């Protein structure tokens, strides 16, 4: 048999396979994408291609989870098992809307699941928001976690007071990174550039400013407890913020009750705690909305003008902020905006509205019958709220719908990524799982030299270079 014949035969067989096995493309290799893939591999025979804009997998597990929370990242082991299954392929450094269009994907797959998350910071839209040292928490997180696009973040930590606008878990992550003893951070996989700048930080006092009251905080109790236990750091609450809170406690559901009790306990300890010269101060403030940033003649932020709010409404869950005429000024030389993330419309054909992909329990409704069905999971579909567990639940739910839909489908005639891989190849350097494994090894080796679990490579070019190289050569060079 000639080589040509063999190829024809091969094609025949693979073409035959196309009709038997459904092809699923997942766009975005973060937790939502991996959890969905996990469910699919366990419940239906299918081929899964996971494409990712960055050359490396794991999304917010790698670039969002704080470096001092290595345990949370253990889930990477479960994801790795999924990626190593023969029916799953990872294609990194492939961008939807740039290297491939949504329409192309839907032509080649029976199902396309969008899980590309929420990558942008929400903005406040107030005066002087573009002043120097007003920083999106998202960028700060990306900076200390080695996100390539944030590695050159300009930040000045030479002032003694900083403020965070927002009271979610990202806000507490930012606070902990700023207030932790630097030696604690050295043991983590925090990037070296961030470590060097944090080591010179002069920040002694950090405000955590929220619009509503203690009953409405968005952070979770684990993060709060961690903050309260931080070495050489004292948490100072404003007693007036907690008026009447104690009366509400008995009627709260357990999780809200426990976190409120923890705040009250900490408030009562305010007086008894000793302070030394090294002690940093963490100061949550409630019922305040930023009105404008105060700047000096060099466009540096020097403070925030805050509108004092009161809450209206019977139920703590639905209480609304009502601004009063009262103003408070907080002086600070650095501000983090941590009021949430928002998604982007990655491709012109993504049905997008109000920062989300429009969906009905994960199904994206549209009329294009001849194209593969479109789904959305994770923050892109639910909005940027909740912890990994919530994303897991949502991803399983949507993946279950995909399974049901695929099982009801009579034939599978799509060809998947292989068919147009060559087209994409000309536009970008695809990093596959083997490439990631080389990067992973390289980063761990680099980390060892500094006594860290990992030193992330923060340049896309360098990452691709390592992925393409023979790892042994890389090892010799380093």
């Amino acid at each position, binding site marked *: 048999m000639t080589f040509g014949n063999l190829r024809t035969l091969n094609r025949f067989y693979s073409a035959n396979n196309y009709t038997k096995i459904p092809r699923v493309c997942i766009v975005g290799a973060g937790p939502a994408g991996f*959890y969905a893939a*996990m*469910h699919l591999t*366990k419940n239906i025979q299918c081929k899964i291609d996971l494409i990712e804009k960055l050359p490396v997998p794991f999304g917010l597990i790698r670039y969002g989870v704080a470096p001092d*929370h290595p*345990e*949370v990242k*253990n*889930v990477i*082991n*479960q994801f790795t098992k999924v990626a190593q299954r023969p029916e799953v392929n990872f294609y990194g450094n492939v961008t939807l809307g740039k290297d491939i269009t949504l329409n192309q994907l839907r032509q080649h797959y029976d199902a396309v699941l969008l899980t590309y998350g929420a990558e942008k910071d929400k903005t406040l839209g107030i005066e002087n928001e573009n002043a120097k040292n007003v920083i999106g928490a998202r960028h700060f997180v990306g900076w200390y976690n080695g996100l390539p696009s944030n590695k050159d973040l300009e930040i000045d930590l030479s002032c003694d007071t900083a403020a965070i606008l927002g009271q979610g878990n990202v806000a507490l992550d930012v606070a902990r990174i700023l207030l932790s003893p630097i030696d604690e951070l050295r043991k983590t996989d925090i990037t070296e550039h961030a470590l060097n700048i944090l080591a010179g930080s002069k920040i002694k006092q950090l405000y955590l400013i929220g619009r509503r009251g203690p009953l409405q905080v968005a952070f*979770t*109790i*684990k993060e709060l*407890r961690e903050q309260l236990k931080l070495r050489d750091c004292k948490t100072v609450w404003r007693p007036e913020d907690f008026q009447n809170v104690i009366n509400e406690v008995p009627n709260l559901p*357990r*999780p809200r009750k*426990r*976190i409120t009790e923890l705040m009250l306990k900490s408030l009562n300890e305010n007086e008894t705690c000793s302070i030394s010269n090294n002690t940093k101060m963490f100061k949550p403030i409630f019922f305040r909305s930023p009105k404008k940033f105060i700047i000096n003649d060099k466009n540096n932020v020097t403070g925030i003008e805050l509108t004092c709010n009161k809450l209206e409404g019977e139920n703590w869950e639905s209480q609304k902020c009502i601004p009063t005429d009262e103003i408070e000024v907080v002086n600070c030389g650095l501000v983090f905006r941590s009021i949430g993330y928002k998604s982007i419309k990655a491709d012109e054909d993504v049905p997008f509205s109000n920062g989300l992909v429009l969906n009905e*329990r*994960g199904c994206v409704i549209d009329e294009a019958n001849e194209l593969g069905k479109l789904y959305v999971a994770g923050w892109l579909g*639910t*909005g940027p*709220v*909740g*912890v*990994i*567990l*919530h994303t*897991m*639940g*949502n991803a*399983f*739910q949507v993946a*279950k719908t995909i399974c049901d839909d695929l099982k009801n489908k009579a034939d599978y005639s799509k060809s998947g990524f292989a068919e147009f891989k060559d087209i994409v190849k000309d536009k970008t350097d695809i990093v596959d799982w083997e490439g990631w494994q080389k990067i992973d090894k390289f980063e761990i080796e680099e980390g060892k030299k500094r006594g860290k679990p990992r030193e992330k490579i923060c340049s896309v070019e360098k990452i691709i270079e390592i992925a393409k190289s023979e790892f042994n050569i890389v090892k010799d060079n380093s």
Partner: protein
Amino acid sequence: MFRTVKNLSCSKFRYLLRFNDLGSNCIDSKRIVPFSTSSLALKDEKVKVCFVLNDGKRLEAEAKIGDTLLDVVVNNDLNIEGYGACEGTLTCSTCHVILKQEDYDRLPEEPSDEERDMLDLAYGLTDTSRLGCQITLTKDLDGLEIIVPETINDARS
């Protein structure tokens, strides 16, 4: 070498045998018995547990005393989706289980603050909820039946 072998748990040992350089001749764990002086005793230290999934499916498993419920799921490769994401480090609540009141009451240890913190994030939290990674099996718990609540019940959607 023999001392090392003795210290290994049965499941780890089986794993080692399955992925050794000698091929796969020794998969049958019973054949390893002569290697280990403690294996006869081990036989008596097994307990049975049963995970009841939300669709009614029952996953029964043999477990070693001293193992946590998470260990049981991992060692027996039980198909419980997403279970134990943080691998028992008390930073997620994916190993949430619900116990019968009498089982909950006879557990030797109360949940710690840290365990309760994580449970607060779990779906379908009950008064007898625990994290599987924090329940260590004792002889007393032989026949334990645990409910694994549904995870695909997203409160936000």
